[in-house]
């Protein structure tokens, strides 16, 4: 994962709650396995009309907002399916940070795995930022190091973020690499658990043996 510090650019207000991951990326777009080409399908039900033409009223199709790196949205953003490519699809569209009152838990965790910053702010602050973003395309700053969002008007809102997540993001750390260093602790736990809870281990091992013999 690349290191993340600050996003500076236009913010688009997607004034909608419960933007689910099916809406972010349709599942049949994922059968090809290509994550970088997903941008054209991101939010397609909102971006395009039934005839395939662009929906001119959708914020990311409006002049000045196309390719906006910051998305401001309603509560429960990213609810629904665990599909991690929802994050890839938004990033392929140019989104680097999303500000919302709340996020779907799995989507929120996935953002940190892929490198998109989700920012939680109280709903009133999100709406204030959204109104400012909707008034005219202008540059906002989302600063992870300082944990704050600065609007073009100068309005500034501090946000909370878990310290471990923040460090992982700032330094572009890799979780699997870190956990592999815990190999001895994991092996020790498993050895103890085979004695404490043999029913977790023995039946599946026996089943594999039976299958191998047959």
């Amino acid at each position, binding site marked *: 994962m690349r290191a993340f510090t600050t996003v500076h650019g236009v913010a688009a207000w997607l004034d909608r709650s419960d933007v689910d991951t*099916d809406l972010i990326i349709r599942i049949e777009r994922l*059968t090809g396995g290509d994550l970088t080409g997903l941008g054209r399908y991101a939010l397609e039900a909102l971006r395009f009309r039934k005839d395939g033409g662009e929906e001119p009223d959708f914020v990311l199709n409006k002049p000045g907002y196309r390719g906006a790196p910051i998305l401001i949205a309603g509560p429960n953003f990213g609810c629904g399916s*665990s599909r991690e490519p929802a994050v890839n699809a938004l990033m392929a569209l140019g989104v680097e940070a999303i500000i919302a009152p709340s996020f779907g838990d799995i989507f929120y*965790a*996935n953002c940190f795995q892929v490198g998109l910053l989700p920012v939680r702010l109280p709903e009133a602050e999100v709406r204030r930022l959204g109104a400012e973003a909707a008034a005219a395309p202008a540059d906002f700053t989302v600063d992870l190091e300082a944990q704050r969002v600065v609007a073009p008007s100068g309005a500034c809102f501090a946000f909370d973020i878990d310290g471990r997540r923040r460090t992982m993001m700032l330094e572009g750390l890799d979780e*699997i690499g870190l956990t592999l260093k*815990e190999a001895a602790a994991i092996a020790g736990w498993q050895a103890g658990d085979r004695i404490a809870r043999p029913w977790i281990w023995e*039946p599946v091992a026996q089943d594999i043996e039976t299958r191998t013999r047959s």
Partner: protein
Amino acid sequence: MMPATLIDKIWCQHAVREFGDGWTLLAIDRQLIHDLSGPPALKALTARGVPVHSPDLVFATPDHVVSSEPGRTGETMGPGAGLWRELRQRTGAAGIRLFDVGERGQGIVHVIGPELGLVLPGATLVCGDSHTCTNGALGALAFGVGTSECAHALGTATLRMRKPRKMRLTIEGRLGRGVTAKDVILHAIAVFGTSAAVQHVIEYAGSTVRALDIEERLTLCNLSVEMGARSGIVAPDDKTFDYLAGRRNAPGGALFERAVDHWRRLASDEGAVFDTDVALDARAIAPTLTWGTDPGQAMPVDGLIPDPREIGDPAARQRAEAALAYMGLAGGQPLAGAAVDIVFIGSCANARLSDLRAAAAILRGRRVATGVTAWAVPGSEQVKRDAEAEGLDRVFRDAGFQWREPGCSLCVAANGDVAPPGARVVSTSNRNFVGRQGPGARTHLASPASAAAAAVAGRIVDVRSF
């Protein structure tokens, strides 16, 4: 000792390491992988040269992108064939057990886990699928995760997690006629909202939950994520132990007795504290269907669709208006009577044997209304065989249903099973999002009995009138 919840007890037992900042390295007892998220996770691991840590604990099956057409193979559905082949190849190379198409054990991943006895009380489980919460019905702590965390669990047999908050949802009282676990959970989401349980695991408690059998509890837990929860869980009891006894990967003999002794101690202690505590009265719940485009937009079948003009909060009003426009419905009107094009009985919410029996009880001696396309998609190969052994396939076929092959099918529409634009679908699945069952398709979530009744009537109807 401080009284602990069921969630606390499982969490503590699996803590390999506490990092001291609220994060835990949590041991994972079981991992299930499917054809959509499994191959990319295994590929990511292979690409960095990390082997699967504990392949004995990992189980795979194709469900999302395989065709449900009778006589299908893994390659019937063109765009999914590559993922199916990759799942076979990568699980084979890693020594992971695969329950393949046509084989007993294949099916929707959250149907086969319990069915095979892979999911046990007190166990931790992950799967790259948000409905992994289903498995909590057996008293397991089950988390849905994305591809990267899937790869992490495959490579290390652990997850890095913060301990979730704990919510208790207590449901008391007897369910009315025609009211099922599906109606209960849709009602709960309508009452509490789609984000009420964000960052929480929900423990379902109370006399209503105790009275539900295991397959009903699986339905209840299945929709936990639609309330925003990380997972759902029910304390294991005699029903759980009876369900597990004799299952293929459950312990047998003396080991089973020893496990039961342990499992009995898992229930939340008297006085254990939850971060959030809510309750519902089961007697107030009617057969419930969704009218809108999220699972919280649900209502009693005999009620009136909410009128946006009567919704005070502007954001909620706007959302209701958009949902009604998409669904082709008018606020203030009855939901019953809306003409139905497609009925889908399937999915990890409601495609187990008891679900098929409930639908068949409505369909026996009746016919699907003219113009309605009706599908029954069993949750697994085992469910399909069991249903056929008791003649349920005949009941469905005689009524005019298609009897199809096990998988996710029209719940997620990843395998070519899609509803056309504008089609009104009564579906036993768990998501009614915009476009979920196909671009422009209009989904009403319902119980198997309500869905079967809608198929016969050709419109949304109160199952209690049958």
